[in-house]
């Protein structure tokens, strides 16, 4: 997929290092391979709209940014529920497909499934080509 992953919290880079060594490296061989960024003070979380001022932390916000530097998708959860990487991967693959082909992908689309080609001919005819 060729995707750059960046993780960010309000922790310092020093805490990131110790977390990687003390815990993450025991869950993922060699530790997580992506940069762990520090958003001390929440100023970056603020411009992404996911900084919780009362708690002083960045909540679970996730953004997909395309090669033109345009934000394509965002997902924000409160802290107590973890994310679903399968859905993230599905969305990245769908956006990459759309960018390459100009087609659009219906709800729940997975690579290899039917895509839609928007245009006058398709109006009222989606039911004929897409049967979820």
């Amino acid at each position, binding site marked *: 997929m060729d995707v750059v992953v960046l993780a960010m919290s309000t922790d310092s880079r020093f805490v990131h290092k110790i977390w990687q060594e003390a815990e993450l490296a025991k869950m993922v061989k060699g530790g997580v391979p*992506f940069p762990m960024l*520090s958003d001390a003070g929440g100023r970056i979380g603020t*411009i992404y709209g996911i900084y919780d001022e009362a708690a002083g932390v960045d909540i679970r916000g996730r953004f997909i940014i395309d090669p033109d530097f345009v934000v394509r998708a965002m997902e924000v959860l409160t802290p107590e529920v973890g994310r679903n990487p399968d859905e993230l991967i599905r969305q990245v693959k769908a956006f990459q497909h759309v960018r390459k082909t100009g087609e659009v992908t219906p709800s729940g689309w997975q690579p290899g499934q039917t895509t839609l080609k928007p245009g006058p001919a398709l109006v009222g005819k989606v039911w004929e080509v897409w049967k979820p």
Partner: protein
Amino acid sequence: MPEAKDGCVKPARGPMLKPTGPTVPPTGTPAAEEVRAMVARVGQEAPDFEANAYVAEGGFKTVRLSEYKGRWIVLCFYPGDFTFV
């Protein structure tokens, strides 16, 4: 492991307002109207920033989001190291 030249002392600049350059004082907070103009939205350009980072094998470095322009990027925020979920 070679020490990155930024080492541990150089603070990153945080949000990068346009035009690009050090227009935000390192200790300042963007004014409210600047924050509104910059807040991330789908279909809009991603707000650029610079942050201190830890990279396995590479140690400490400064990462600027726009370094990765031209590639697909997944940017993930989370509440904190050593949290449970």
